[in-house]
């Protein structure tokens, strides 16, 4: 899924798309305004940049395909390119050559402010009406009152523990505190965005720091989060970003507790229940992904049709089930193959998501609305993370 080897090809591709982008003629200028419509039946080709499992065209598994029906119905040709991390997605999108993208919140803002995406006219997307209300008009898909896309699905970064090795934890303290019973067998996510997980824990353990939003950290709050990460480092067996490696480590017993995705727990519990996954009392970080349209697309009609198609109840159900996350379309829950899917992923429980802090790109202007201090932008997070991991 978010596999590392993909990256080397991504570099090659980024280089080649850069050249292609330079050669192609400049596209229509859509400065500011969204497409007025109506969506016409213009045939065309769209290049889709997606998380693996989000736009399956049958090449991974012949039975998993919701791209071909779209092509047949609309006459639009779809080329899918998958990426491994949000950072890679930003890089590819900036290089150009893609018409639509499924972006997590930590990628979307960077792309919007970089001028790589265009506002979306939601009146042209009938299926938008069925999207869960708590996914609409959120800071990672809406800027200055303009909507930039349609929500696809969401998930929480859960606390996973091996049954029989670790007593069911109710708090993240099991991964942060030096006296943790799982010392030396803990894992953490290997990305700068994990600093937000430290901030989530500090929100309840050190309320005096006044953290309101784990992605809006001023210098004092940020230093406290980094200090917590330094305290955690000796407890860590491995940092993970390749989920297959993570699964292997849990099976072999070298990792017993740590941050995880529901889909990883499901794979591990495939044959018999070996791990539990919980959202501790402090809340958790998570992701909420949005389909967005490039500001430079030349196939605007196909792009709009794609956005409408991908959140159709039955397509959204297929994609969410295949990937292992909560669908964004409220009508998708009735159409999943596993009838318990939405329950398993808490899709319909509004309360469950109230303390899930979706990935966002930290900016210098504090995302929680404070104006008296400056927050650390993501570039500083990355710098600090790189230094921390190599210290």
């Amino acid at each position, binding site marked *: 899924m978010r596999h*590392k*080897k993909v*990256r080397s090809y991504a*570099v090659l591709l980024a280089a080649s798309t850069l050249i292609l982008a330079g050669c192609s003629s400049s596209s229509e200028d859509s400065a500011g305004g969204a497409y007025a419509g109506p969506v016409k039946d213009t045939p065309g080709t769209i290049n889709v940049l997606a998380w693996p499992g989000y736009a399956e065209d049958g090449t991974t598994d012949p039975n998993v395909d919701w791209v071909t029906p779209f092509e047949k119905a609309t006459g639009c040709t779809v080329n899918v390119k998958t990426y491994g*991390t949000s*950072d*890679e997605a*930003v*890089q590819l999108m*900036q290089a150009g050559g893609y018409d639509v993208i499924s972006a997590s919140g930590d990628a979307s803002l*960077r*792309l919007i*402010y*970089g001028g790589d995406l265009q506002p979306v006219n939601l009146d042209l997307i009938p299926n938008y009406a069925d999207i869960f209300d708590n996914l609409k008009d959120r800071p990672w898909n809406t800027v200055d009152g303009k909507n930039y896309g349609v929500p696809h699905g969401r998930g929480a970064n859960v606390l996973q523990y091996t049954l029989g090795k670790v007593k069911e934890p109710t708090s993240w303290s099991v991964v942060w505190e030096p006296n943790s019973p799982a010392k030396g067998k803990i894992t953490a996510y290997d990305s700068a965005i994990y600093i937000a997980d430290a901030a989530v824990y500090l929100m309840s353990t050190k309320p005096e720091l006044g953290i309101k939003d784990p992605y809006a950290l001023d210098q004092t709050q940020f230093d406290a989060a980094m200090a917590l990460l330094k305290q955690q*480092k000796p407890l*860590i*067996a*491995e*940092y993970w970003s*390749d989920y297959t*490696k993570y699964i*292997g*480590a849990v099976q*072999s*017993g*070298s990792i017993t507790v740590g941050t995880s995705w529901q889909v990883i727990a499901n794979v591990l519990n495939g044959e018999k229940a070996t791990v539990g996954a919980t959202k501790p009392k402090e809340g958790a970080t998570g992701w909420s992904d949005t389909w967005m349209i490039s500001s430079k697309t030349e196939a605007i009609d196909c792009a709009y049709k794609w956005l409408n198609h991908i959140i159709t109840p039955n397509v959204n159900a297929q994609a969410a089930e295949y990937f292992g996350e909560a669908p964004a379309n409220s009508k998708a829950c009735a159409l999943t193959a596993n009838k318990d899917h939405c329950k398993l992923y808490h899709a319909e429980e509004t309360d469950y998501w109230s303390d899930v802090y979706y990935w966002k*790109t930290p*900016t*210098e202007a504090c995302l929680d609305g404070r104006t008296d201090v400056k927050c650390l*932008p*993501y*570039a*500083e997070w*990355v*710098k600090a*993370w*790189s*230094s*921390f*991991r*190599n*210290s």
Partner: protein
Amino acid sequence: MSNKVKKYMQQRPTARAAFLLSLPLLWLLLIYIGSLLALFITSIWKIDTFTSKIIRQFTLQNFIDIFSDRAYFNVTVRTLFVAICVTIICAVIAIPMAFFIARVAKPKSRPVLIALLITPLWASYLVKIYAWRTMFYPEKGFITWLISPLGGQSPGFGIFAVIVGLTYLWLPYMILPIYAGMEKLPTSLLDASADLGAKSGKTFFNVILPITWPAIIAGSIFTFSLSMGDYITVQILGGTFQMLGNVVYQNFSLNLPFAAAVALIPVIIMLVYLSGIRKSGALDNL
């Protein structure tokens, strides 16, 4: 080729040489030197801190960042340490093995031994490293199984596992040049040494080692440079341990100029290493 061109080429050796060399030179200049230059130029640029887009404006900030943060000094030292350890261990294992194949084994069995030596190179790098990963698992791994009767346990993932993995990967690159060097060793010299009363140890240190030294150096260039740049083995076997390649990998997508600046560190170390070797004259006989 038309006769005219043929004749022209025959009459002018310089034109002929230029024609023959043009392709390799193009490769060397454009692809090799060119990419190094691109690396250097990128390292003096900066990025828009929010969108990560490169701004082509001169700055030394990337180098200031590297030198002002002790973490990057430490990671450089750790990387050098691993590369040196891997090179020394490879040499210690490779010298007797190469000597055995070139001198002790029957001439008939030599091709078989060489083939066996190369077989690990037929398997994918990743397969081999993942195999080591399963062996190093602290709880159920092969190493734990092997030494648990003696009361030991696998050291788990970390610098030790990385050194073992890299040594395993690069060993053939050390053995092959040394084997080639030892094969050329005249038997008469060994006979003469024995005739003059030298014991095998003395013959080894005073005759064999000095003559095969350039071959060992050639092998060390492979093992040292390959270890300096590796990051995948470190990701798989390193646990929380990191090397210079990992710094580049962590930063290239968000801050390419900084990653380029870090990538120059192993390049500089290799240049120092190579010029040191050249000065010592070890490459003169090669």
